[in-house]
C-alpha cells in the first residue's frame, strides 16, 4: 500500500522535477556556475528523470484500461477545464522514450564550444518537460497547449544552433506547417468542448457524436497530426528541418516530435472518432502509400546523408500511419511498436551521422569513404542500425514492420504489396549509404568513436535488441488501452 501510494506520487514528482529545470535558469545566475558544472547538473537531472520513469513502468498496472497515476489540478473550474494528467499504456512507453533520449542528447553536446550552451540546455529541459506533459495529459485543451508549446524550443534549437544560414528558413517552415495544422485542430477542440461540455478524454470518449460531426472534427484533427507525422503533402518541413538542425535537434525531432503525431492519431483520431476513421481509411491509405513509395525512392537519390535519413523517417512514419488506420488490434499494436523502435533506430542513426559530421564537417556522402579502415567500432554500430532501419529480424523494427505488413494485408492485400516496397527500397538506400561510407578506399582518416559517443548510442542498441527479442512483454499493456 505504501509502495503504491509512493508510486502515485512519482508521476507527479516526475513533472515537478522537470519544472525544477526552469528554476535552474534563475539559480544559475545566482550561483554563477561554470560551464562544466551546468552540464553536469543538467545531465544528472535528465538521468534522474529517466530513473523516475523506470519506476513508473515498474509500478504500472497493465490489467486495467483506466488512466493511472492520475494527478488533478484546478485550472478554471467555472468552465470545467482542469489540468489532469494520467498515464496510459500508450503514453507510458512514449514517456520512457522521451526520458531515455534526453540524457543521451545532453551527453552528446558535452564538447559544445559556443556561447549558446545555456540556450541549448534550457531548450532541452523545457522540451522534455513539455513532451512528458503532452504525452500524459488527459485533458484535450491542455494536450493542445503542450502540443503547441513544443514549437518554441524546437524553433530555437533549429534556428539558433544549426549550422548553415538556411536554418532560419527551415525553422520558419517547421513552425508554420505545424502551426497551420494545429490551429485547424483548435477549431475541432472548441467544437467538441462546446458540445460535450468538458474536455477530459474519458468524458469525450463516452459521448457519442454523430457520424457527420465526427467526420468534420476528424478532418481538423487529422490536419494537425498529419503535419507532425508527416504525411504528404505536409512533409516539406521535415527534410529541411532535419538537415539544418544540429545533431541533437534532429534526434529529438525524429525521435520524439514525430511520435507526438502518431500518438495523437492513435489516441485522439482513432480513439475518439472511430466511425470517421473507417470512412476516411481509403484516403489515408492513399496518402500513406504515396508517402512510403515516394520518400523511399527520393531517399535513394540523396547526396546528403542527413536528408537521406530524414526521408527514411518519413517513410517509416507513413508506414506507421498506414498500420494505425487498419483499425484492427494487430495494426494499432504494431504501429505503436514500430513508432517506438523508429524512435530508437532513427535517433541512433542521427547520432552516428552526427559522429561523421563532427569529424568531416560536411554532409555530402561523397566526401566519406572507407571509414571501416580507421573507425571499426563506429562502422559496426552504424551497420547494426542500418540493418535495423531496413528491418532485420532480431531488431525491434523487424517486429514492427512485419506485424504492420500483416495487419495491412488483413485489410487490403494490394496496399500491403505496395507498402512492402518500403522494405525493399529501405534495403536499397540503407545498404547503399552504408556501403559508400564504410567500404572502399579511405579518403579521409578520422579517429574512432570516443567513449562519450559510444555511450550515447549504447542504450539505443540495447533497447533495439531487447525490444526485438522480448517484444511480447511490451505488447500486453497496449492491448486493453487502444480499444
Amino acid at each position, binding site marked *: 500500500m505504501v509502495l503504491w501510494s509512493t508510486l502515485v506520487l512519482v508521476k507527479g514528482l516526475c513533472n515537478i522535477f522537470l519544472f525544477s529545470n526552469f528554476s535552474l535558469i534563475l539559480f544559475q545566475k545566482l550561483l554563477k556556475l561554470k560551464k562544466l558544472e551546468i552540464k553536469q547538473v543538467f545531465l544528472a537531472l535528465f538521468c534522474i528523470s529517466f530513473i523516475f520513469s523506470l519506476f513508473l513502468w515498474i509500478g504500472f498496472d497493465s490489467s486495467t484500461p483506466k488512466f493511472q497515476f492520475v494527478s488533478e489540478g484546478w*485550472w*478554471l*473550474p*467555472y*468552465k470545467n477545464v482542469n489540468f489532469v494528467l494520467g498515464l496510459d499504456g500508450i503514453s507510458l512507453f512514449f514517456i520512457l522514450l522521451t526520458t531515455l533520449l534526453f540524457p543521451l542528447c545532453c551527453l552528446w553536446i558535452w564538447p559544445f564550444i559556443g556561447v549558446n550552451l545555456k540556450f541549448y540546455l534550457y531548450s532541452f529541459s523545457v522540451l522534455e518537460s513539455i513532451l512528458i506533459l503532452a504525452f500524459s495529459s488527459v485533458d484535450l*485543451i491542455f494536450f*493542445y*497547449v*503542450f502540443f*503547441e*508549446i513544443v*514549437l*518554441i524550443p524546437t524553433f*530555437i534549437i533549429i*534556428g*539558433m544552433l544549426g549550422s548553415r544560414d538556411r*536554418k*532560419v528558413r527551415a*525553422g*520558419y517552415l517547421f*513552425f*508554420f506547417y505545424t*502551426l*497551420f495544422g494545429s*490551429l*485547424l485542430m*483548435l*477549431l475541432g477542440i*472548441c*467544437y467538441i*468542448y*462546446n458540445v460535450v461540455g468538458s474536455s477530459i478524454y474519458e468524458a469525450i470518449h463516452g459521448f457519442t457524436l454523430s457520424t457527420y460531426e465526427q467526420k*468534420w472534427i476528424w478532418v481538423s484533427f487529422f490536419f494537425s497530426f498529419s503535419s507532425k507525422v508527416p504525411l504528404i503533402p505536409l512533409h516539406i518541413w521535415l527534410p529541411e528541418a532535419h538537415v539544418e538542425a544540429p545533431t541533437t535537434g534532429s534526434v529529438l525531432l525524429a525521435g520524439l516530435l514525430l511520435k507526438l503525431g502518431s500518438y495523437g492519431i492513435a489516441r485522439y483520431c482513432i480513439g475518439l472518432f472511430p466511425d470517421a476513421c473507417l470512412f476516411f481509411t481509403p484516403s489515408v491509405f492513399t496518402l500513406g502509400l504515396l508517402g512510403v513509395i515516394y520518400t523511399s525512392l527520393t531517399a535513394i537519390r540523396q547526396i546528403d546523408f542527413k536528408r537521406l535519413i530524414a526521408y527514411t523517417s518519413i517513410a517509416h512514419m507513413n508506414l506507421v500511419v498506414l498500420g494505425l488506420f487498419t483499425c484492427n488490434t494487430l495494426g494499432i499494436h504494431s504501429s505503436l511498436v514500430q513508432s517506438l523502435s523508429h524512435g530508437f533506430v532513427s535517433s541512433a542513426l542521427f547520432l552516428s551521422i552526427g559522429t561523421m559530421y563532427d569529424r568531416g564537417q560536411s554532409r555530402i556522402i561523397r566526401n566519406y569513404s572507407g571509414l571501416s579502415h580507421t573507425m571499426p567500432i563506429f562502422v559496426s554500430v552504424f551497420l547494426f542500425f542500418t540493418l535495423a532501419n531496413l528491418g532485420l529480424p532480431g531488431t525491434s523494427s523487424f517486429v514492427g514492420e512485419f506485424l504492420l505488413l500483416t495487419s495491412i494485408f488483413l485489410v487490403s492485400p494490394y496496399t500491403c504489396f505496395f507498402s512492402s516496397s518500403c522494405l525493399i527500397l529501405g534495403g536499397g538506400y540503407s545498404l547503399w549509404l552504408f556501403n559508400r561510407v564504410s567500404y572502399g578506399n579511405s579518403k579521409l582518416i578520422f579517429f574512432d568513436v570516443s567513449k562519450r559517443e559510444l555511450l550515447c548510442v549504447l542504450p539505443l542498441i540495447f533497447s533495439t535488441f531487447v525490444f526485438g527479442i522480448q517484444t511480447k512483454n511490451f505488447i500486453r499493456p497496449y492491448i486493453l488501452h487502444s480499444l
Partner: protein
Amino acid sequence: MKLVFQSDLSLFLPEFFVCIGLLLILLYGSFSLHLGTTFYTNLNFTVARLSILILIQSFFLILNNQTIPFYTIVWDSNFVLDSAAKWSKLIISSGLISCVCCSFSFLFISRIRLFEIFVFFLNICLSFFLLISSYSLTTLYLSIELISMTFYILACLKRDSGLSSEAGLKYFILGSLASVFFLFGSLYIYISIGSIGYQPAILLVSTGLIPSIYIYLGFLLISCALLFKIGAAPYHNWVVDVYDGAPTLMSFLFSVVPKFGFFVALSRIVFTLGPSMFSCLWESLFLCCGLFGLLIGCLGGLGELKLKRVFAYSSIGHVGFICLSYSTGILNSLYSSFIYLFVYTITSIFIWTYILQLDPATRKKLSLSNSLGLLQSNQIFSFTIIFTLLSLAGIPPFAGFFAKLNVFSCLMESSFYFIGLLTVLLSIVSSFYYLRFVKIIFFEKSFFWVHFVQIDKNKAGLLSLSFLCINLYIFTADLMFLLSSKTSLGFLA
C-alpha cells in the same frame, strides 16, 4: 437642506476628483511658469508626479465607490454606475497611470516642456470616465467629442515634425467625419424612438418591438462612428498614419486607452440597447469588420518596415478579433471579448513601453532592425519581448492564446465554421511578422557593437508587471476570468 442630486454627487466622486485635480494642475502650471525668475522652468516632473497621484487616488476612489446592486442611474438618467463601469474605469485609469509613468523620461529626452500634456491626460481620464458611464446619446456624444479633441491635439504635439502634423490633421478630419455620422445616427434613433436616453430605448427596442425601420440605420451609423474611433477595419485608414506620426508617447496612449473605452461604449449599445438586433444588424456588421480587420492587419503588417506601423497593423488585426467575437451574440462572446481586451491592453502596454525605450536611443526612424543584438546585450529583456510577441501571435502558454481560444470557442458555439476557418488562416499569416521579430532578436547577428541600455525605473516596473500578467496567465486564469465576467455581465443587467 438636501440638494436634488446629492446622492449622485457622492457616487460621482472619482470624476469630480479628477476634474478638480485637472483644474488645480492647470492653475498651478500657468502660475508657476510666470513666477520663476528664469524662463527655464521645467515643470514636467512635478506636474507629472501630481497627475500620477491624482490618477492613483481616482483608482482607489472608484474601487471604494458604494457597492451597487445591479446598476444605479444618476444625473437624471444621463449616467449609469454598474459593475461594468466600475471595472472598466479601473482599467482606463491604470492604462493612463502606465502612460504617465513612461512619460517622465520621454518628455525629458524629446525636450518637450509642455506641462499641459498632463492636463490633457487628466482630461482624457475624465472624459473616458464619463464615456463609460454615459447612459444617453447626448452624454455619449459629448464625451466622444471631449476625448477626440484632446487626442487631435496630442497627435500633432510635435510642432516641428511634418509627420506629426500630418497625423494630427488626418485624425482630425476623419474623426470629425465620424462624429458627424454619430450625430446623424442619433438623429434617426430620435426619429424612431422619440427619446435620446438609453432607458426608453431599452424598453422599446430590446423587447423586439421595432417602432420604425429607421432605427437600424440609426444604430448602424452610431456603431460605425464608434468603430471608427476604435480603429476597426474598414475604418482603419487613420490608425497607421496616426500611430506612426504622433510622438511615441501619444501612440502609446492611443493604443492602450481608447480601444478599451470605446469598446465599452460599443458594448452598451450592442448588448444593452440592441440585443434583439443581432440577427439582422450586428452579426453582419461585426463579421464584416472582423474579417476585414484580420485581412488588413495581417496583409498590411507583412510589408511594413517601420516598427510603429507594424504594431499599428497588428492592433487593427486584434480589434478585428474582438469584433468577430462580438458578432456571435452569445453570452460567452462578451466574456471572451473582454478577456481579449484585457490581455491586449496589457500586451500593448508592454510593447509600446519597449518601443518608447528604443525611441530616444536612435534619433532616426524606428525600424525592426533596432532590436538587433538584444540577445547579447540584455538577455532577460529579449526573452520577455519574445514571449510577449509569441503571446500576440497566439502561441500557448501565453495569455494571447487563451484569449484567442475563447474567441474560437464562441465562433464554434454559434456555428460560424467557415468564418472560424478563415480566422485561423489569417492568424497564421499574421503570426509571420511576429515571428520575423523573434528571428531578428534571436537569430541575426548584428554587425555593430551592442551595448547594454539601462531601462529606467518606471519603465522597468511597468514592463515587468505587464510581462508577469501575460506570461503567468496560465497559472492565474481564474483571476482574469472573474475580472472579465464582472465587467461584461454588467452590460446585461
